[in-house]
Structure formats: structure tokens, C-alpha cells
């Protein structure tokens, strides 16, 4: 951490000696259109995938919480994508998104959608990366929401039913409010994790086309390990740290009640 801070105040390409430049890295950073683009890409990514994965997994968890047969089987199947290594998952999606003979374009053709060039289209590439993100996040979310649901005492439901509440009312007035600490916890965890999106981008698009999928971590990687701008990249890292730190604090302030540490 300290090293990162000190490095961020220097100009350094690893070969020549470090040169102190004060806050100039930060000034350059906030003036760089590339940085703002990376920030925008990251925000779109986070705002796109966190709520999507959350809504899907809440619905699934509520259904799993009904007395269904084969719950262990369903839990395993829902969780399988979550343990798949991200590099592998991203590569599978590259195959499924293949423009000419990929499965996803084939399915879309039933709805009259022409063949899309997912990973080469600046308007679609980020969406493709987000698909993998959602696919992998559902399992984790659903398992935690399910545990949250199971900790809600049955008497609440009984009471509501005696008062004549229907299913929709029960979900809206009892389940979701009681679940809100869990949902909040997951949302923060996923925001923090999504802010660090890197592997899927590296495998699927390498930040392209034309920077359309260049997230902050990818921007950092490029600057540090391809252009050897260690000082500048450290400044990027610190900006990312501040953003993530804010969310971590949120989690500590409001999430404590739920997490059974």
C-alpha cells in the first residue's frame, strides 16, 4: 500500500531511476480521456450486472425455498458456473458468441435478429462481457439468498397467511423486507468484485474494440505492464482503491448485522 502511494508520485518505467513528479500523475490521470472512458466502462459494467444477477438469483432462491424435490441437486447445478474459472467461462462464451456458427446467434435468429458480431462491435462487446459476469454471479447470490430465506422464521408466514395475505403480498411485505440486509450485503460484495473485472475482458476482447471494454483494472494493467508506466498505473490503482474503500465502508457500517462473523 505504501509502496503504491510512493510510486504513484513518481515517473518510473522500471529501467531508469524513479523521478519524483509530485501529483503530476494524478493531474495527467484526470485529464486523460482514456481514464474517463475506463471509468465509464467500469460503471456501466457494474450497474448492468449487479442488479441483473441479483434479481434473477432472488427469484430462483425464493422458488428453491419452496418445498421442492431434489434441493441438493439444484443447489449444485446453480453453483456450477460460480466455481468455473473465469478464464474458462470467458472462453466458452467466446465460442457461444461466434458470429457465424455460434449458439447464441443461432437462438437469436429465431427472433429474427441478424447475426451479431458481438466481440467486434463496440456497442455489443461490453454486453458480451457482462453476460459472462451475470452467468458466474448468479450461483453465489442464490446460495446466500437461500440461506437468508431459510433463516426467516416460519411463524411470520403463518401469521400473514392467517391475516389473509396472498403470495405476492407475502413476498413483497415479508420476505423482501426481512431479506434486505442479505440483499444489501450481496450487492456490496458484488459491486466490489465487479469493479475489479479483468480476466473476462482480457480473454474476450483485450479491452477492445476501440476501448469499448477497457475497464479500470484493464487500463491499470495496460499502463503498468505493457507501457511500463508504473507511476501512472499506481495512481490509477489508488483511485480504484478509494472507490472500493467507500463501498467497503458501506458494508462495514450497514452489513455487520447480517454477516455472521
Amino acid at each position, binding site marked *: 500500500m505504501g509502496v503504491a502511494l510512493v510510486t504513484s508520485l513518481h515517473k518510473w518505467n522500471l529501467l531508469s531511476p524513479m523521478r519524483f513528479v509530485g501529483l503530476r500523475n494524478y493531474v495527467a490521470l484526470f485529464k486523460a480521456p482514456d481514464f474517463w472512458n475506463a471509468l465509464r466502462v467500469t460503471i456501466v459494467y457494474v450497474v448492468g450486472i449487479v442488479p441483473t444477477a441479483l434479481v434473477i438469483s432472488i427469484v430462483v432462491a425464493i422458488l428453491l425455498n419452496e418445498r421442492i424435490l431434489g434441493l441438493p441437486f439444484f443447489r449444485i447445478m446453480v453453483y456450477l458456473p460460480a466455481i468455473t474459472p473465469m478464464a474458462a467461462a470467458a472462453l466458452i462464451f467466446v465460442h457461444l458468441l461466434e458470429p457465424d456458427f455460434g449458439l447464441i446467434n443461432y437462438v437469436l435468429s429465431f427472433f429474427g435478429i441478424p447475426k451479431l458480431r458481438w466481440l467486434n462491435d463496440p456497442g455489443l462487446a461490453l454486453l458480451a462481457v457482462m453476460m459472462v459476469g451475470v452467468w458466474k454471479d448468479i450461483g453465489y447470490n442464490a*446460495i446466500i439468498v437461500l440461506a437468508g430465506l431459510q433463516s426467516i422464521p416460519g411463524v411470520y408466514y403463518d401469521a400473514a397467511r392467517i391475516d389473509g395475505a396472498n403470495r405476492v403480498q407475502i413476498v413483497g411485505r415479508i420476505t423482501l423486507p426481512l431479506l434486505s440486509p442479505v440483499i444489501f450485503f450481496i450487492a456490496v*460484495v458484488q459491486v466490489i468484485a465487479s469493479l475489479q473485472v479483468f480476466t473476462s475482458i482480457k480473454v474476450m476482447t483485450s479491452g477492445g474494440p476501440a476501448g469499448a471494454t477497457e475497464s479500470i483494472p484493464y487500463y491499470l494493467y495496460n499502463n503498468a505492464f505493457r507501457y511500463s508506466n*508504473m507511476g501512472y498505473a499506481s495512481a490509477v490503482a489508488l483511485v480504484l482503491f478509494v472507490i472500493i474503500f467507500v463501498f467497503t465502508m458501506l458494508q462495514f457500517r450497514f452489513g455487520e448485522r447480517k454477516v455472521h462473523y
Partner: protein
Amino acid sequence: MQLMEEKRLRLVRVVLIQLFLLAFVLVLNVPFVWMVTTSLKIRKDVFIYPPQLFGSQLSFKGYAYVWTFVPFARYLLNSLFISTAVGVSRVILASLAAYAFAKIPFAGSRQVFYIFLGTMMIPFEVIVIPNYIIVKALGWLDTYYALIVPLSIRAFSIFLLRQFFLQIPRELDDAAEMDGAGRLRCLFTIMYPLARPALLTVCLYSFLESWNSFFWPLVVTNKDTMRVVQIGLSALADPTISIQWNEICAAIALATLPIVVMFFFVQKYFLEGITITGMKA
């Protein structure tokens, strides 16, 4: 009569939910299934449109091809070795620290523990550059040290084990000490058997985290012989090399299978560990 009607409605509902969930997990796992069946196709079947789930014949040529094509076997072995080393070292190192924090009162114990916890809040991307600079200064680039040592301890593992050790009654240690056992002996013969679920959880998470890690190995390795399997995979997507999707899928299957098999055997521990700790694997 009305009761019967209600029962019937409930049955219909349960069946509908069951069917919906079944459809959902099937769709969710399509990428997975597709990857496995594609890995068993032959080259020309990959280019058929509309895409078919199964090829014209079942073949293991894809597997044979990747096994010999790139040093893929070497990648797998590297990953296996590194992940095992990380899993084992984290259990040993974290349990030593956790035991000290939980059972040995020393000045500043609480403060040191909080500093350790504080490191959990620092995301990997933020420390990748300092870590890289340190590893480079040590001359560890392109060595196993770089891939193992920085991952060999995590505050979260210490934290998890400390909480577990705290629940084990003091009297057990006291009795052992009275009988002449030292600290280490207490840890290994009293704590280890009692804390087996927690130790296993730490070990599995660490193995998984290391196996799936990508950014760090990408940065600190360059030589082909030091590559881990995830990096090896990403290199396959390069359109300039002569490899087809059945072969790439075979490589993906090889890189994913160990994790999936492990998961099936220990999924109970795994899923419980997630719900107790809220840890995102």
C-alpha cells in the same frame, strides 16, 4: 371437497415450480454442457450451421491434440503444484497465526489482529504493482516462488481459523499443557482434529482461488514452462494459431474438470462455508 381442491392446486404449483427450476438450471448450464460436447467433436463438426449439440461422431482427438499441442500438460501440472502448495501453506501458516491470536495472550494482540484484518480490504488490483516490484527485486519473476509465496497467507484464513479456535474450550489446552505438551503440540494434536471442517474450508478455498487466479500469474510469468493453466487457456483464443474449437473446448474441460470433481465431492462443506462466511470464491 374444498380441501381436496386446495391440495390439488398446491400440487400443480409445486410441479410448475419444479419444472421452471429444472428448465432454469438446464439453460444456466448450457455453456457447460456445450463445452463438454464440443470437446468430443471432430474438427469439421465445429463449423456446422445450425450448431449441433453432438457431433457426427464421438472422439477424444481434441484431448489428444491439446495434450501434445502446447505444453498443456505442463500448464496443468504447474497449476496443480502451485494450488496444492498454496492450499497447504495457508492452512499451516494461518493456523499458526490464528492459534496465537486465539489462545496466547500477548501485548498488542488485538491491535495486530486488526491490522491483519485491515489488509482484507485492500483489493488485489491495488497491490499488484508493489507486489510486482518486490517480486522483481527478489529476482523471482518466472519462478514458482512468485506464484506461491505472495499467495501463501491471507488475513481471511487467519480470521476464519481464529474464530473457530476461539470456540474450542480453553480447558482442553490447559489439560494438554498440564500433561507437558508444548504450544505446537497443542495446535497439532488438539486443535487440528477439532477444527477439521474449518481447516478443510481454508484449504479448499485457497486451492480454488489459486487455481482460478489469472491476473497475478499473467504478470509474473513469461516463460512457457512457468505458465499456469488459466493463462495457457487464454492464449488459445489467439486466432493466429492452428487450433479449432473442439480442441480449445477440450483444453477448457481439462482446466475446469479438477475443480468440478473436487466440488462434487466436497460441495456440502463448500456451500456451507459460503453461507457462513459470505466469502465470494
